[in-house]
């Protein structure tokens, strides 16, 4: 049983390590990064939670952990949505070029 748990947790960790490639891939813009990173992060957390649940069996720990996982499942995409919406409303749509909205954001 614990071998199965380690395999599932390993899959979750692999997802998160792939997410690191996603946020550092050169030549991509911000929307690419937030799409890749937040999706893979949420999925990785869910998989890790399932692995820990298999590891611990049915217990107090598992129930509480699933509460956290459900909350993250709601909150993490919500934060990503708000950040992307904020970027989109500000007109930040540069694809790969070096338009630095960052510098001009505080200027006005």
């Amino acid at each position: 049983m614990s071998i199965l748990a380690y395999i599932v947790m390993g899959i979750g960790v692999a997802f998160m390590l792939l997410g690191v490639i996603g946020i550092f891939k050169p030549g991509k813009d911000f929307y690419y990064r937030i799409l890749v990173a937040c999706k893979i992060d949420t999925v990785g957390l869910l998989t890790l939670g399932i692995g820990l649940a298999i590891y611990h069996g049915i217990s107090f720990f598992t129930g509480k952990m699933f509460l956290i996982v459900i909350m993250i499942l709601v909150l993490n995409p919500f934060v990503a949505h708000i950040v992307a919406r904020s970027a989109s409303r500000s007109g930040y749509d540069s694809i790969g070029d070096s338009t630095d909205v960052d510098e001009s954001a505080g200027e006005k």
Partner: protein
Amino acid sequence: MYVIFAIMLGLLVPYCIRVAVGPSVWDRLLGVNLISSKIIIIIILYSSLNDLPFLLDFAIFYALSGFIGTIFIALFFSDRDTKKGLGDRK
């Protein structure tokens, strides 16, 4: 399990780099969001390793309070030119 804990701690490094160098402010916010979710996983693994299930309370509190600051900063930077305050949209 210790290996996963170490990997999660190590993952904080690239995310902090993303927060430090991110070309736009939203990249930085993305980094903050990723760091906070990683830290929740670190807490879960720590409580699982030391057999302290009440520390999951802390993880719940962390999940519930960590996102608010990020959302506020995002709201502050949204629609920068056309409005003056946080809620002054006509």
